[in-house]
């Protein structure tokens, strides 16, 4: 229940529904650019070392007079992979078109893109919804087309500065159907698409570097209506969470506008993450007439189905299949498996961690440690697990130590925190456990006098416990744990406390 601008309570959810379509620009991890032999900003190993301004800019990238495009075959292959992995139909004849607009970071005054007859059409992907990912929803993919990225501009006081290193980086634009109904679905769609393109090895997946950028088309309409409301487009948001928040804000803004009797203006908006709001970038009236027409420099791309099939046959395991396999092979939950496979590097790391003798029995624990403490630190640090100090052996070892009761899960989290900043070889885990004194005390006989003293010091609580106030067991266990500096095996400690309470 919310309050509208007149202060009246309104249950918007029963009156409106949000309709969202997403357009995602995925940078393809080719060596050279899409139409020029210049180094593409993404290097082979996925590192994104900062290049000197305009160092990767040829006369083709800069749109010099007389230059012509020559299409990169790897970019085509990657785009086909994207299409096949999202159940698209691959057009055996597709067309490159020029999209015209004037902007200082667009060298030719047009972007080579696809308009009529894109490479891939009519696909879909499944997203998982609900707290445990228990329900599945199919989201349509209208088209996936190939295009070139623009350059970058830096805005200084009184002038702007153009860097064309990014100009000509190959992109696929993945356009969804307006099948998404709320920010959570949009987030799930983006995470799934991200998992797919990184699993395919066609995108390096560095969000900060703009490898994966999202535009969201948002409209609201009376629930039950089949007509689409006037939409706004929120441009270039490069974090999943911000996309969700931007959509949430925008849908609410649109509801307020409609309820106040105004009309939605079709326009392009930008999202300000700091203020958590969207604002107008340009209204549709001022919008460009793109004057698309087939690029006469690039004849139609004609592919044969044998080639498509050979790419289909060489596709790596996709996230959904990997998730199902993880559930089956390692006995972890569907939800945990889904989280692990949402990032290719995390999924690989997990598999390496449990690829030891008896690894399967450790899988659940490893998964929990990775999804919990490790992921928390990685997210905070904004880095990929492969770029961190973590090694798969660390987690194998931690899971072993937990399973043979040498350390507690709490202690394991502490070790992970230390590994995060120190790293080290496989022996580092035990060394940290020793050094920090994190070994669990399993022989509790030495604790008996301490427990006895705690009971004696708290006669009132002991009496209430005996009178049936079971919950008080926690109080005694807590006191005892404190006395052992948290090292006692909690299950064994509880057993001992119970025994003592009954005896005394």
């Amino acid at each position: 229940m919310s309050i509208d601008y007149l202060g009246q309570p309104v249950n918007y959810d029963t009156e409106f529904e949000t309709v969202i379509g997403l357009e995602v620009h995925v940078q393809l991890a080719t060596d050279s650019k899409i139409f020029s032999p210049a180094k593409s900003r993404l290097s082979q190993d996925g590192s994104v070392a900062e290049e000197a301004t305009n160092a990767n800019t040829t006369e083709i990238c800069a749109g010099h007079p007389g230059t012509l495009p020559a299409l990169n075959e790897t970019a085509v292959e990657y785009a086909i992979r994207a299409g096949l992995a999202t159940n698209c139909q691959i057009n055996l004849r597709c067309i490159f078109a020029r999209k015209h607009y004037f902007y200082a970071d667009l060298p030719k005054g047009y972007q080579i893109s696809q308009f009529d007859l894109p490479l891939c059409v009519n696909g879909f992907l499944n997203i998982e919804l609900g707290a445990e990912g228990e329900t599945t929803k199919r989201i349509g993919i209208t088209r996936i087309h190939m295009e070139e990225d623009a350059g970058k501009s830096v805005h200084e006081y009184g002038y702007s500065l153009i860097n064309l290193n990014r100009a000509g980086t190959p992109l696929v634009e993945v356009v969804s159907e307006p099948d998404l109904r709320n920010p959570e679905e949009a987030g799930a769609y983006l995470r799934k698409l991200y998992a797919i393109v990184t699993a395919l090895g066609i995108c390096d997946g560095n969000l900060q570097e703009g490898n994966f950028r999202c535009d969201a088309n948002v409209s609201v309409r009376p629930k039950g209506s089949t007509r689409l409301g006037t939409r706004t487009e929120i441009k270039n948001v490069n974090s999943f969470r911000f996309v969700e928040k931007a959509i949430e804000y925008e849908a609410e803004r649109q509801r307020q506008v409609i309820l106040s009797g105004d009309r939605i203006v079709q326009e392009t908006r930008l999202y300000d993450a700091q203020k958590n709001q969207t604002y107008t970038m340009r209204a549709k009236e001022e919008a460009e007439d793109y004057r698309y027409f087939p690029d006469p420099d690039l004849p139609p791309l004609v592919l044969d189905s044998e080639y498509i099939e050979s790419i289909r046959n060489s596709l790596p395991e996709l996230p959904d299949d990997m998730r199902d396999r993880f559930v089956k092979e390692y006995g972890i939950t569907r939800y945990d498996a889904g989280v692990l496979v949402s990032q290719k590097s995390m999924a690989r790391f997990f598999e390496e961690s449990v690829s030891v003798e008896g690894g399967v029995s450790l899988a659940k624990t490893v998964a929990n440690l990775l999804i919990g403490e490790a992921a928390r630190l990685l997210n905070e640090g904004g880095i990929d697990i492969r770029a961190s100090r973590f090694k798969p052996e660390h987690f194998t070892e931690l899971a072993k130590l937990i399973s043979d009761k040498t350390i507690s899960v709490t202690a394991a989290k502490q070790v992970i925190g230390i590994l995060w900043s120190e790293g080290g070889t496989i022996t580092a885990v035990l060394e940290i456990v020793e050094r920090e004194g994190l070994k669990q005390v399993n022989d509790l006989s030495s604790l008996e006098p301490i427990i006895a003293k705690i009971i004696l010091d708290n006669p009132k609580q002991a009496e209430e416990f005996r009178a049936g106030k079971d919950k008080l067991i926690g109080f005694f266990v807590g006191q005892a744990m404190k006395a052992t500096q948290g090292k006692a095996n909690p299950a064994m400690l509880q057993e001992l406390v119970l025994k003592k309470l009954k005896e005394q």
Partner: protein
Amino acid sequence: MIDVNETLIQKVADLARLELSEAEIREYASSIGGILKHVEQLNSVSTEGVEPMYYGIDGSLRLREDLVQPMAVKEDGKPRILETAPESIHDGFKVPPMIG
């Protein structure tokens, strides 16, 4: 038939980012009007079902192997592409403020 007036010429010139004088706008309204009138003869050609010819050659697009070519640099190691820049600063192409 399209009425080629000065308003249309101004609108199209804006789209093409061309600054025109009033005399130019008048002249183009007249000359382009004349040309488009001649072009109207195409309406009398029956083109139903005719595949448009958008390209000078037949056949499929050739693909380029994904190979990186070394970049051309000047003697001072700076990118050669900056040689032609009307104005540059910090190795970037300088333009008037794009925003604000």
